[in-house]
């Protein structure tokens, strides 16, 4: 799968360099969501993520058109690197204008409850997952994801083995995925 991606990327880069605008649209379609997610996961701001996405694509396309992309097959890495530069420059700019954000704290420490991924489908799906959980398993999810306690401490508190907790977590996530996909399809 990764090999196919690289090959496609090489083709895309070559087409963009030849000035084919449809290739630029294809590039945007392919990486837009990933780029937005990467920026959002770093900056925790929808507006900033939008800005990073737009600025990154502009720079990438200009670089490809100008023949500055050394290895067309490593287009994905080039996009990621460009996005990181854009993010870094944005943070630096904000610091200059005294708009210091909590970016560093968010990178290293626990993050606040995330509103970006909460939609009605997520809420309904998680409710269905919770309904199937046993009391101890619910307590585990709360202690792990909300209270952010270490697994070994939770295992001690709930008198459960850590292997059991890992199983609960993976089953809950699997169930959530199934329910969520079902909900967004209907």
């Amino acid at each position, binding site marked *: 799968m990764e090999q196919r991606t690289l090959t496609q990327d090489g083709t895309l880069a070559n087409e963009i360099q030849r000035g084919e605008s449809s290739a630029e649209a294809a590039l945007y379609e392919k990486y837009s969501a990933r780029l937005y997610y990467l920026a959002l996961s770093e900056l925790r701001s929808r507006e900033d993520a939008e800005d990073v996405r737009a600025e990154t694509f502009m720079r990438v396309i200009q670089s490809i058109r100008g023949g500055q992309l050394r290895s067309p097959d490593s287009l994905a890495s080039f996009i990621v690197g460009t996005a990181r530069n854009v993010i870094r420059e944005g943070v630096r700019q904000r610091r200059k204008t005294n708009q210091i954000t909590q970016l560093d704290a*968010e990178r290293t420490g626990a993050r606040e409850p995330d509103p970006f991924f909460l939609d009605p489908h*997520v809420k309904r799906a998680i409710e269905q997952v919770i309904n199937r959980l046993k009391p101890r398993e619910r*307590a585990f999810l709360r202690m792990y994801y909300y209270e952010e306690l270490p697994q070994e401490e939770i295992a001690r508190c709930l008198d459960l083995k850590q292997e059991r907790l890992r199983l609960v977590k993976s089953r809950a996530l699997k169930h959530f995925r199934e329910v969520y996909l079902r909900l967004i399809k209907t």
Partner: protein
Amino acid sequence: MMTHREIENQDIIERYVRGKLGAEERHAFQEHFFTCDECFANVQTTERFIAGAKHAAEREQLEAESVPRRTPAVSSLPFRWLKPAFALTSAASLVLAAVVGWLLLVQVPQLRQELAREHQAREQLAQAQRGAGQVNAQSNGVQQSRPPTEQPKQELANNAQRAAPESQNQSASQRPARADKSPMIATNVPLVILQATRGAQEANELMLRASARSFVLWIEPGPRTEFDSFRLVVLTANGRLVHSVEGLVLNASNALRAKLPAQAFTSGGYLVQVYGVNKAQTVLVGEYKLRIERH
């Protein structure tokens, strides 16, 4: 570049979502999910799942009260300084519990016994004085409604002597400290211990001399801890307000003591109402009939 095996074995996706990866791992995983549809889908699902779990926890949908939960080690929490703070608080709580226990189990019974002895002594003294035709200034209208017991006069006098003199300060007398060990009434102030009379025909009686300047009502509504204070209202038989006292608090014997001006009262029947007062409400907790005979 990261492999799927590494990502699975090291819980990379979840750690990425929870912000637990170092810079190097984070960058490596970002490059990976840029070319891997499966991991990109998984990381987004995990974001949604964790966001949903946090949201559910905030809304207390993940509460499970039936789960026996051992106390987590405080040292693993980010606020390590809380540990000594909690320890200090716990120690203070233990000391407080011990003091309260001592008060409830030792002091209060002793005070109650002392009060009962005092009541008994007063009743016997008044009975003896009436029997001898000596209803005079020494007893000054102290009434009783309980049967006397046989005791030598000297002992009765001693019991009366033990009663601590009431402060002359009226506000202080109406707000005795809870730990006051001498809540008794001075012998030279007329006193009536009110018995609940709701629905009863018999009224509490108080003989009040014309020269008396005040008298004291002693009421035992019981340990009504739900109230911050009490209000006492005295009405005539036809419902006219004669006098009221605000801000009464229970003394160590769980009794209220209200000192009232004698000149406001003539001979006749009265209704004494006691209301419990807290921030939320005022509730009638007792009603007492009182008959005053002035002479």
